[in-house]
């Protein structure tokens, strides 16, 4: 049985060339960047080169890239670090209802520590309204955090507009770009971004590596205190091999890969919507992540569908309550106005640079069958 991986939004395969680029930093140039000797200098040179290359991709001339252990750490660092460092200025933070759990749960933690957080609603396609955003800004607002693209339904938020509004009101602007980085253009300067979260394992790089771009001059408190690595912003022995792999992954993402994701996504959307009582969540076209397809199927429970597809060798994901620890359906699907029974029947397919037309055709066939089988099993079918 061929196995078909359509869960690239969850994580990606490390590209063989990325692994090759990393290898010397495991076994040969394995030094600690903080060391004075040749091994230390080699490590530092490699990490600084990686830092420069990644920073160039997003026009980060006024920014410093601080390496972290991933998107979750970067988001926790950004929110808590800005909050604690600027609490004399104000205690109000703006974010949205559809952020990743790490932004939401860091925000909730800050609420318990005396901060006040506004969670902006979104429309049925998942868009934050710039008017709502502007309206939420208060005198004591210090930070706004709006994701660049949503990980479930693929909505690309109008960060340029939001960043501009934030800056007009002297509010720092952070965006979580874990899903969009290298896939959707972003420009730290033109998009008025003060802080941006990125990670490596969504773009064919290794897990356990991420970064936070920080505009120079922005006051932020470290999350990890210690030896003062990463310009004092993030202590801990730097994961040089991981960083080199991250930079290689960034370098390897080419236009043709994105075009392939997009084409496969569109084939999938077209085919899946031919299934009876199905619908697409999130927007169509330009404003959708190139690799995201997210469907609802009536009378279907998502976990059962995912496992059914899994038995046919196909990897996808669901926002169904049954698949989550909280037993609540996805907060994103709820935020776009789906009823619980609609959220339960949701499935996300995320295409990759290696996805083929044959794989999509096989997947559509399997999807049709599985939906039919499960509906037949159901008392509602």
């Amino acid at each position, binding site marked *: 049985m061929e196995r078909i991986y359509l869960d690239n939004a969850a994580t990606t395969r490390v590209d063989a060339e990325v692994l090759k680029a990393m290898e010397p930093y495991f076994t040969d140039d394995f030094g600690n960047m903080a060391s004075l000797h040749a091994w230390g200098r080699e490590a530092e040179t490699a990490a600084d080169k990686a830092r420069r290359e990644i920073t160039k991709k997003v026009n980060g001339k006024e920014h410093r890239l601080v390496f972290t252990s991933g998107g979750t750490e970067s988001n926790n660092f950004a929110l808590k670090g800005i909050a604690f460092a600027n609490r004399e200025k104000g205690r109000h933070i703006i974010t949205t209802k559809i952020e990743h759990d790490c932004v939401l749960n860091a925000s909730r933690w800050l609420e318990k520590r005396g901060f006040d957080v506004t969670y902006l609603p979104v429309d049925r396609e998942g868009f934050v309204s710039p008017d709502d955003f502007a309206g939420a800004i208060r005198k004591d607002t210090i930070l706004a955090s709006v994701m660049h693209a949503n990980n479930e339904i693929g909505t690309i938020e109008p960060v340029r507009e939001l960043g501009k509004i934030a800056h007009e009101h002297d509010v720092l602007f952070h965006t979580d770009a874990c899903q969009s980085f290298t896939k959707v253009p972003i420009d730290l300067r033109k998009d008025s971004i003060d802080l941006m979260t990125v990670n490596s394992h969504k773009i064919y790089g290794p897990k356990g590596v991420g970064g936070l771009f920080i505009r120079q001059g922005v006051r932020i408190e470290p999350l990890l205190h210690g030896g003062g690595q990463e310009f004092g912003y993030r202590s801990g022995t730097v994961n040089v091999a991981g960083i080199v792999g991250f930079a290689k992954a960034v370098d390897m993402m080419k236009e043709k890969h994105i075009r392939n994701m997009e084409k496969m996504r569109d084939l999938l959307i077209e085919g899946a919507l031919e299934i009876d009582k199905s619908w697409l969540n999130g927007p169509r076209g330009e404003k959708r992540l190139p690799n995201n397809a997210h469907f609802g199927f009536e*009378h279907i*429970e998502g*976990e*059962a569908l995912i*496992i059914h597809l899994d*038995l046919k060798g196909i990897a996808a994901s669901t926002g*169904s*309550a*049954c*698949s989550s*620890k909280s*037993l609540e*359906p996805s907060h994103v699907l709820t935020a776009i106005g789906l*009823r*619980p*029974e609609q959220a*339960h029947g949701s499935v996300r397919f995320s295409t990759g640079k290696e996805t083929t037309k044959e794989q999509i055709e096989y997947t559509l066939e399997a999807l049709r069958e599985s939906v039919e089988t499960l509906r037949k*099993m*159901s*008392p*509602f*079918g």
Partner: protein
Amino acid sequence: MAMQYNEKVMEHFRHPRNMGVIENPDAVGFVGNKTCGDAMKIFLRVEKRNGKNIIKDIKFQTYGCVSAIATTSITTEMVKGKTLDEAYNIGRADAARELGGLPPIKMHCSNLASEAIQAAIDDYRKKHKNIKENV
């Protein structure tokens, strides 16, 4: 957390036993709803044998996750041929045990199957009582 279902659970999910409907059943039980993500319908054919009410045939329909489907499937197997009293006492823990265990977070899904059977038996008893009374 990746759900680690065992072989037996997966076997029942892949090939559910007694899946379907009984035309003109002696009793029907329905529990759950779409909003909470799990719902089950149980159809019973009951036969009197040696003065006892025996479950002669049982079918189910389930809307729900892997655990819900597998526990309904195995529960129908467990109660088939049992008396209504015996079937009524098969609890949720029994189905999970018979399946060789469920992921802890999924234990709640196994409630529904025994509840659906109890609902069907209640339905049968109600109807039967009515019949007796009406005679």
